[in-house]
C-alpha cells in the first residue's frame, strides 16, 4: 500500500509540465478485419535508449474482434482532489475497452516491458450492470473510473440511449450508470470535466448502426449524426444545458476543456459541415450569467480534387474534406492540435485567446489526395488521426487509423499502421522528426496513444496554475 501519492500525480497542469519527460508510450494495435487479436504496443520513447522509437513489448489479448479504440488510466492527477481522499491510488492500470465487442481489458503496466492483462470484464457484465454497450472514452474521476459508451442495450445498441457508467478504480467492478437526468442527450462520444467547478461536457458521434459497418452517406447528408454538446452538473449527474451546434455540423467529437481549472472554457472538434465540407472547431465557455455558450472559432476549408483521386463516397463533391477527427490541447492551454484526417494535415493553433485562434504551425503527411510522404521518404497510410501531446508540450505524437470500416471507405487503397512524432518550436511551429517513424506489425493499424505518467488528454487537475 502506498504511503505517498503517486509521483505522476500533479496538483496543477504547470507542475505536470515540469515533471520528467515520458519514457514509454502505449499505442493501440488494431486488427481491422478481426483476423488477429488486438493489443497494446509498448513504445520506447526514451531518446537515450538503444531501442528508442521501437515497439519493445506487446500485450496481445486472447480474444479476436474487440476493436480497440480509446483507452485510459485507472488513476490520474484527479486523485489529488481534496474532496475525494483517494490520493494513494497508483497510476498503474490501463483500462482498454473494445468498441465492437464491449469487452474491457485492465492491463497492468507497472513494469512497461512486462505489461500484462490484469482483468477481463466480459461484455455480458457490461450489458447487465449498465444497460449500455460499446465502451469508449475513459476518464479517472471523483468516484472512480468513468467510461463513456457509444451504444445502448440490445443487439444493435439502439435499445435506449448510450451514456456513461462508473467502475471502481481499485477492484474494477462495474458500479452502474452515471446519469440521473440526461435531458435530451440520446447519442454519445467524448466527455471531460472541470472538477473544482463541478461541470462536465459531453459530445455526440452517432448510434452504432451509423458507424459499425461504415459511414452511412444518406445519414450524413441528411444530418442524422450528432451535432450537440451537453453540459452537466457533474456531481448532481444532471444535464443542465444542451447546445445544438447546428445540424449541418455533423459529428461533434472531441471535448478538450482548458487544463487550468480556473478557466471556464474549452474546445470541441466537428468532423464535417455538410453545407461546405469544412472542418470546424467550436469554443465553448460559460458567460457571466452562468449560461454556456459556443461559437465556431476555427474553420478549415476542403481542398478541390479530381474525382478520379477520390473514393466512391467523395467523388460527387470534387473536393476532399479536412475531416477533423481528433484535437488535443497542450497542458499550458496554449496550443490546440487539430488532426485533418482527410486532407492529411496536422494543424497547430495558438489558442492563448480562445475566441481568436491563430494558425501557428502545420505539417502535411498522408492524405486522401496528396498522400504526402514522411520526411524519411516512407509512406504514411491514411492521414494524421489520434494525436497526443507530451506533458512538456515539446513533442506531438500521432497515429493514422480512424475506425476500421471508415478507413476502408475513405482510403480504399491504404493499409498499415504508423506512429510518428513532430517537434514543437520554441515559439510555436511544428516539424516532423525524420527519425521517429514506427511501422506497426503486419496486419495491424494503430489508434490512441497514451504516454507513461499521463498526457494532455488524461489528467484532470484540481488546483489552478499560479
Amino acid at each position, binding site marked *: 500500500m502506498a504511503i505517498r501519492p503517486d509521483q505522476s500525480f500533479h496538483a496543477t497542469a504547470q507542475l505536470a509540465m515540469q515533471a520528467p519527460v515520458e519514457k514509454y508510450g502505449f499505442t493501440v494495435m488494431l486488427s481491422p478485419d478481426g483476423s488477429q487479436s488486438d493489443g497494446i504496443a509498448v513504445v520506447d520513447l526514451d531518446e537515450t535508449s538503444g531501442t528508442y522509437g521501437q515497439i519493445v513489448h506487446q500485450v496481445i489479448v486472447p480474444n479476436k474482434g474487440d476493436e480497440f479504440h480509446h483507452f485510459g488510466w485507472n488513476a490520474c492527477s484527479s486523485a489529488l482532489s481534496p474532496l475525494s481522499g483517494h*490520493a494513494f491510488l497508483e497510476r498503474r492500470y490501463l483500462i482498454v475497452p473494445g468498441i465492437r465487442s464491449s469487452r474491457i481489458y485492465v492491463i497492468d503496466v507497472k513494469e512497461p516491458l512486462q505489461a500484462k492483462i490484469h482483468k477481463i470484464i466480459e461484455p455480458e457484465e457490461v450489458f447487465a450492470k449498465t444497460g449500455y454497450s460499446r465502451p469508449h472514452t475513459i476518464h479517472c474521476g471523483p468516484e472512480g473510473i468513468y467510461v463513456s459508451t457509444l451504444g445502448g442495450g440490445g443487439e444493435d445498441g439502439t435499445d435506449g440511449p448510450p451514456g456513461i457508467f462508473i467502475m471502481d478504480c481499485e477492484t474494477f467492478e462495474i458500479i452502474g450508470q452515471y446519469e440521473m437526468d440526461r435531458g435530451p442527450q440520446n447519442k454519445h462520444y467524448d466527455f471531460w470535466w472541470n472538477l*473544482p467547478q463541478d461541470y462536465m461536457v459531453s459530445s455526440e458521434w452517432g448510434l452504432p448502426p451509423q458507424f459499425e459497418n461504415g459511414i452511412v452517406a444518406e445519414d450524413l447528408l441528411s444530418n442524422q449524426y450528432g451535432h450537440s454538446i451537453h453540459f452537466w452538473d457533474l456531481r448532481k449527474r444532471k444535464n443542465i444545458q444542451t447546445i445544438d451546434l447546428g445540424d449541418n455540423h455533423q459529428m461533434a467529437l472531441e471535448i478538450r476543456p482548458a487544463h487550468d481549472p480556473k478557466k471556464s472554457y474549452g474546445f470541441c472538434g466537428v468532423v464535417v459541415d455538410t453545407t461546405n465540407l469544412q472542418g470546424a472547431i467550436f469554443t465553448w465557455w460559460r458567460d457571466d450569467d452562468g449560461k454556456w455558450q459556443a461559437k465556431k472559432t476555427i474553420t478549415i476549408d476542403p481542398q478541390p480534387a479530381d474525382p478520379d483521386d477520390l473514393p466512391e463516397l467523395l467523388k460527387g463533391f470534387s473536393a476532399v474534406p479536412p475531416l477533423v477527427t481528433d484535437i488535443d490541447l497542450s497542458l499550458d492551454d496554449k496550443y490546440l492540435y487539430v488532426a485533418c484526417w482527410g486532407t492529411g494535415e496536422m494543424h497547430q493553433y495558438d489558442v492563448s485567446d480562445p475566441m481568436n485562434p491563430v494558425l501557428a504551425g502545420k505539417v502535411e503527411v498522408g492524405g486522401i489526395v496528396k498522400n504526402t510522404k514522411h520526411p524519411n521518404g516512407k509512406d504514411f497510410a491514411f492521414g494524421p488521426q489520434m494525436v497526443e501531446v507530451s506533458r512538456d508540450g515539446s513533442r506531438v505524437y500521432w497515429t493514422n487509423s480512424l475506425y476500421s470500416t471508415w478507413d476502408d471507405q475513405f482510403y480504399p487503397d491504404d493499409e498499415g499502421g504508423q506512429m510518428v512524432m513532430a517537434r514543437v518550436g520554441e515559439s510555436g511551429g511544428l516539424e516532423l522528426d525524420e527519425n521517429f517513424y514506427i511501422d506497426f506489425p503486419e496486419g495491424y493499424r494503430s489508434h490512441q496513444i497514451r504516454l507513461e505518467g499521463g498526457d494532455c488528454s488524461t489528467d484532470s487537475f484540481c488546483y489552478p496554475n499560479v
Partner: protein
Amino acid sequence: MDSGSALWWAVAGSGIYHGINPGMGWPLAVSAALMNGRRRSLFVALGMLATGHLIAMLAILLPFSFMTVLVQYERELRIGAGLLVVAMGVYLLITRRHPKILARIHPARLVLWSFLAAMAHGAGLMLVPVYLGMCAIDDAGHLAAQSLMRGNIINAFSVAIAHTLAMIVAGGILAIVVYLWLGVRFVSKSWFNLDILWALSLIAVGLTGVYTSI
C-alpha cells in the same frame, strides 16, 4: 501533570492531529483561495471546515453526555464506549475503503463535507474516551442528576470547541504556509497515507479508555 490536564492535552493533541491530516480538509482552503483568487476565501473555507468538524464532534459527544446521567453505569458506559471506538478502528483497518460519498459533495459545501469527513473517519469517536474520562474525574457522585448533566453538556461543548480550535489552527497554519509560500506542490509532497495510523490511533484510544475504567 495530573490526569485532568493530561486529558486536556489529549483533546488539543487530537485536534492538531486531525488538523494536519489533509483528509480533514486543509487543502480545500488552499484550493478555494486559489480558485477565487482571494486570500479571504481561505479563511472563509477554514471557518466552514471548522464548523462542520465542530458539529461532528458535538453529534458524537452530546449523546454520551446525556448517558452520563446514569451514574451507576458509569463503568459500563466507559467500557462500552471504549469498545465502540476500538470497533471503529478495526473496521477502518479492515475495509480501508474511502467513502465515495465525500466525492459527490459540491466543492462549495464545505460545512457538509467537513461534517461527513469527520463522521466517516470516526474523528468524533476518538474524543469519546477522553471526554468520559473527564466526566468521571468531576466529583460526580455528589451532584444531583440535573446539574451533573448540565455540567457534562458544558464539558462536551468545551471539549469539542477546544479540539476544533486546535484542529483548525493546525490545519489553517499549513494552508496559509502552502498558499503564501510553499505552493501547491506541497499538497502531494506532504500527503502521507495515515489510514493505518489513524485506525490504530482509534484502537489505542479505545483500549486506553477501557483500561482506565476497569
